């Protein structure tokens, strides 16, 4: 059950124009940097990207936007990206803004084999337009469908050759739920080890969900808002 590929280029080799991709990360934290770079290099276009954010102008998915590789973004928050805003306001880019919890739970539903979920987020707002509303115990909920993605691309801290993954701190974010949700899931990790080296009780994503894994290189891990305090 060896899932190891040589690197990002091999991992994304069969991603084609027009596909739907999930990309893990929150802001610039926990991004699959190697795969994003490979997608930029490969130049695939007309992509639908499901990702909480759209990166910044020169990092993360922002790099793919700059090259006009993205047809549609499905995100919860897209501030901090001027090129994104320009493409959106000019109509070059389709954008589906959805509540963050809805985004995460639609990924989760896909990974748990459930076609839809019910959430109160967005009831009474424009997010509810065209959606089925169901009332449970006197409260209204929107029916939201599980995502259907061709590929999920995630970043983990450690992984083994069988695809078991462990994430670090808040770099976990959307990565585990997206890892569960792709028809094909690609994981890039900082540390790739042999089976048995990770404690089974500490695994966040069981390898059954992961199809390809490789050790990433040259992580920049850019910080969006560096906030510190002085030592007293």
């Amino acid at each position: 059950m060896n899932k190891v590929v040589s690197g990002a280029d091999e991992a994304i080799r069969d991603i084609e124009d027009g596909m739907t991709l999930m990309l893990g990360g929150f802001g610039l934290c926990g991004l699959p940097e190697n795969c994003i770079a490979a997608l930029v290099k490969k130049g695939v276009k007309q992509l639908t990207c499901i990702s909480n954010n759209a990166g910044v102008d020169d990092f993360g998915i922002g790099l793919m936007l700059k090259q006009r590789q993205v047809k549609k973004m499905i995100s919860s928050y897209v501030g901090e990206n001027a090129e994104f805003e320009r493409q959106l306001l000019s109509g070059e880019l389709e954008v589906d803004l959805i509540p963050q919890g809805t985004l995460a739970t639609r990924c989760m539903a896909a990974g748990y084999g459930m076609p839809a979920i019910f959430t109160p987020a967005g009831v009474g707002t424009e997010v509810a337009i065209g959606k089925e509303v169901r009332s449970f115990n006197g409260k209204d909920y929107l029916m939201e469908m599980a995502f259907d993605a061709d590929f999920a691309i995630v970043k983990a801290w450690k992984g083994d050759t069988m695809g078991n993954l462990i994430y670090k701190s808040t770099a976990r974010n959307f990565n585990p739920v997206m890892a569960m949700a792709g028809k094909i899931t690609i994981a890039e990790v900082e540390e790739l080890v042999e089976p048995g080296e990770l404690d089974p009780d500490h695994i966040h994503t069981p390898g059954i969900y992961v199809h390809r894994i490789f050790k990433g290189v040259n992580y920049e891990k850019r910080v969006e808002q560096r906030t510190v305090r002085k030592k007293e």
Partner: protein
Amino acid sequence: MLDKQGIAKRIAKEIKDGYYVNLGIGIPTLVANYIPETMDVVLQSENGLLGMGPFPFEGEEDPDLINAGKQTITMLPGSATFDSAMSFGMIRARKVNLTILGAMEVSENGDIANWKIPGKMVKGMGGAMDLVASAENIIVAMQHVNKAGESKLLSNCTLPLTGVHCVKKIVTELGVFDVLPEGGFKLLERAPGVTVDEIIKATAGKLIVEGEVPEILI
């Protein structure tokens, strides 16, 4: 009149021992600085952390550890990390006791708008729609009027809504207001040096003033 720190200080008094609290971006983030040390309060960051601590010391920033505002932070002893689905699971299941967030507009029936200005700003709702749809107790921290001098406490919101009938309390630079279940902003306290007349003038929605209105103590 209260400054941003003053608004944060006043809101901190709403936090009770044992609370799990989610703080939004902006003034709400400042509230963390005024929670008494004697109180046992756990801060939730919706990108997947319970037990958020202060900013790291210079040189100790960890790019893998940020809050929902994308700022570098620390974890306190007893912290737990989790994925985004679980994070909003605990919010939806009402395990988080109090949500404090900013707003562009609040209506007298508790509707809130804070994610979009059509044609101008398209940043998105982030976790705000999930939070306001599920939280048991929502306090809004905001300026009373916008940059154009127009009241942000309205009869009806004019901007696209984030949630309906959800805001319970508002703290602005002018005062503290309850949003009544039957509709209307009830003036509870006024900021130091601010008269009731000034608050009436700055409030476009239905304002309810009963008897003497005490000054905010912070």
